[in-house]
């Protein structure tokens, strides 16, 4: 029961929001569409659900053409950022309503049973007799989700449902969702600008950029092997550091370096396929940077702008050659703003991108590969 969209085009006025999107969403996957705000995720979702129509292109559910089928004739559920529940109905009545208005004649016992089941699954069985205004934000959102799930739709579309929730609650629901949907038959399509949410919950991720899905893969694959610069720069908490470099080879030796400027040379071991004299974009993750006092080991020495220590994690915001880079350190750190900090980098965890096309040309040995 997967979804296939082919060649979707949609523009609003002169703005081309979706530019020929072709996408396969696997059956029973949790598929996140990730992109910054305003990139067109909501539009894509609405077209796939059938609430909006594309200018061109087709939508197929499980091989069957659905492009012109009205949304009420499809087996879909939808959850929005604003938790939408009927304010004058209790939670129980809210959950029952999709079953009551559907064409099928469910018996009262059947409805009760399914309401109870769904409520227990989403842990709102204790508030079934409350009104939506009496319950907390998280409970209201879970009510909205229950209402979408109670008809056991084949496809569930969620548009940033966690955006308006408390921090701790989002954390909790992220974890709950991941578990919940892995046990369900429903195919979930989830739109979010938060890379972290997508990485935490999804089985698959598609990255929307300039009207196109530029990479779509299993979560691990798109995380460990981002094939294009925009994906690499976005899909990470904090995002990957990207630095322009030139590959340099000493005339008299086989040592190769990524040269940033006259002072900074980063070892380029293992990248024999690259050509000396060429410029590239070098990517390395904030977690793969090791603090060092040893100048022989140090590859780069940026200047500290800011340290954010939360609990036992320190995020270092630094200035390197006029660009902002980040490092993640697993312990609390107390450092002075403006201090120069040295890091050792591991070439086995490097990503090398083509500066014009932005695609991944080479990756370090330790980076997992996917066939």
């Amino acid at each position, binding site marked *: 029961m997967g979804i296939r969209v082919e060649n979707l085009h949609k523009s609003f006025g002169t703005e081309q929001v979706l530019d020929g999107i072709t996408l396969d969403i696997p059956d029973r996957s949790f598929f996140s569409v990730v992109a910054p705000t305003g990139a067109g995720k909501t539009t894509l979702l609405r077209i796939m659900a059938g609430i909006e129509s594309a200018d061109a292109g087709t939508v197929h559910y499980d091989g069957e053409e659905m492009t012109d089928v009205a949304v009420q004739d499809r087996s879909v559920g939808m959850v929005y950022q604003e938790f939408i529940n009927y304010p004058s109905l209790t939670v129980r009545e809210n959950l029952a309503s999709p079953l009551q208005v559907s064409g099928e004649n469910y018996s009262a016992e059947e409805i009760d049973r399914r309401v109870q089941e769904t409520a227990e699954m989403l842990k709102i069985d204790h508030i079934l007799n409350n009104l939506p205004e009496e319950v907390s934000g998280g409970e209201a959102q879970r009510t909205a989700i229950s209402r979408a799930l109670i008809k056991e739709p084949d496809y569930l579309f969620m548009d940033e449902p966690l955006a308006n929730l408390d*921090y*701790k609650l989002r954390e909790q629901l992220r*974890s709950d969702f*991941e578990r919940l949907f892995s046990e369900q038959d429903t195919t979930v399509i989830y739109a979010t600008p938060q890379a972290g949410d997508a990485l935490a919950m999804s089985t698959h991720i598609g990255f929307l950029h300039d009207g196109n899905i530029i990479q779509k893969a299993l979560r691990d694959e798109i995380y460990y092997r981002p094939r294009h610069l925009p994906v690499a720069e976005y899909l990470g908490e904090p995002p990957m550091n990207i630095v322009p470099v030139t590959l340099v080879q000493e005339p008299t030796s086989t040592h190769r370096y990524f040269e940033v400027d006259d002072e900074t040379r980063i070892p380029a071991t293992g990248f024999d396929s690259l050509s000396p004299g060429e410029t590239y974009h070098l990517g390395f*993750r904030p*977690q793969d940077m090791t603090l060092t006092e040893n100048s022989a080991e140090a590859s780069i020495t940026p200047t500290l702008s800011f340290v954010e220590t939360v*609990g036992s994690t320190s995020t270092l*915001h630094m200035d390197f050659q006029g660009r902002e880079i980040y490092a993640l350190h697993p312990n609390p750190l107390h450092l002075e703003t403006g201090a120069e900090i040295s890091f050792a980098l591991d070439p086995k965890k490097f990503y090398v991108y083509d500066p014009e096309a932005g695609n991944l040309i080479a990756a370090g040995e330790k980076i997992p590969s996917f066939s």
Partner: protein
Amino acid sequence: MAEIEVRDIRHVYDAGTADETVAVDHVDLTLQDGSANALLGPSGCGKTTLLQIISGLLQPTEGQVLIDGEDVTDQPPSERDIAQVFQFPVIYDSMDVYGNLAFPLRNGGTPENEIEERVQKIADLLELNDILHSSPSNLGPELNQLVALGRGIIRADTSAILFDEPMTDVEPARKLTIRRRVKEAQQEFEITALYVTHDQHEALTFAEQVAIMRDGHLVQYDSGETLYQNPVNTFIGHFIGSPGMNLLDCGVTANDETPHAQIGPHTIAVSEDIHDEIDLSWTDCQIGIRPSSVTVQVADPKEDTNYIPATVDQVEMVGGYQILTTRLDDTDVEVKARVAHDFMIEEGASIWLSFPPDTVQFFHEKQAVHAQ
């Protein structure tokens, strides 16, 4: 730049009716002059009510508000000289940025040349120079919040500045820049600040001292580090940290004549400092350990009894790391452990966990057990 104290504040909404709610319940809090503080807690904990009582927009049912020792409980906001930044940018959009910043000073009759100096200073600090003559409707909510902040601190006699979840309308990608400028402004002017938020990340990075509220009570008021290392009860332990502390129900048992925690068939050593405080007859005990402190190993440690076998139920990628949700073998107990982002592990795999004793906290009846 003043010291703000709230004494025994209690506030009840709809008193005497069926809908009566105690929003704030006997809170005592002192904010040091020039300090950056945060008020953190889940929705409905009373933090916004407390903020409004401090700013003067709400009169408390009981208790006093003091600024530099003077009782201001009956004074309206304008007399308290407390500036406020709201959830959405509150801007005078018929004036440009310069006009907005100058507004409070012009109302006070300050001469124009002095006004220009002050506006320039604020604009420099908050990096608003490029947009001084722009209209607020053309800037986004991020810049407008900074303008609102600038307007709040521009008067030299501002005693404090209160923030009520100011990042609500700000785009996630811009939050950090804005938070940094807010922090720099607070430090530069040494203004007593209180920042209300439900996001601990924001609270812990802005404030030196964080007050955590729950159900109208002030649970703990300490530095971020102390809250993290020494939570006063299980609520704080779980609330602070992302993910929060693991709280595992346990029994107490003696092992080599020192108290240990007992979970199912497994015995876990606790921090030495508290050995003397633990009573072997206690019930309702829990140990707390942060996911970042749990050591994870795939290879069988053989006879090393410090390791406990467990099975991986869930692997989540969170904040640059991976969080494994594991279940200790032969128990129903769930433990979250943090591992590197490229630690390759599958759901269902068997692993070994170790809990270094100095990182293990002990809770009795939900309260932390500390060395005396």
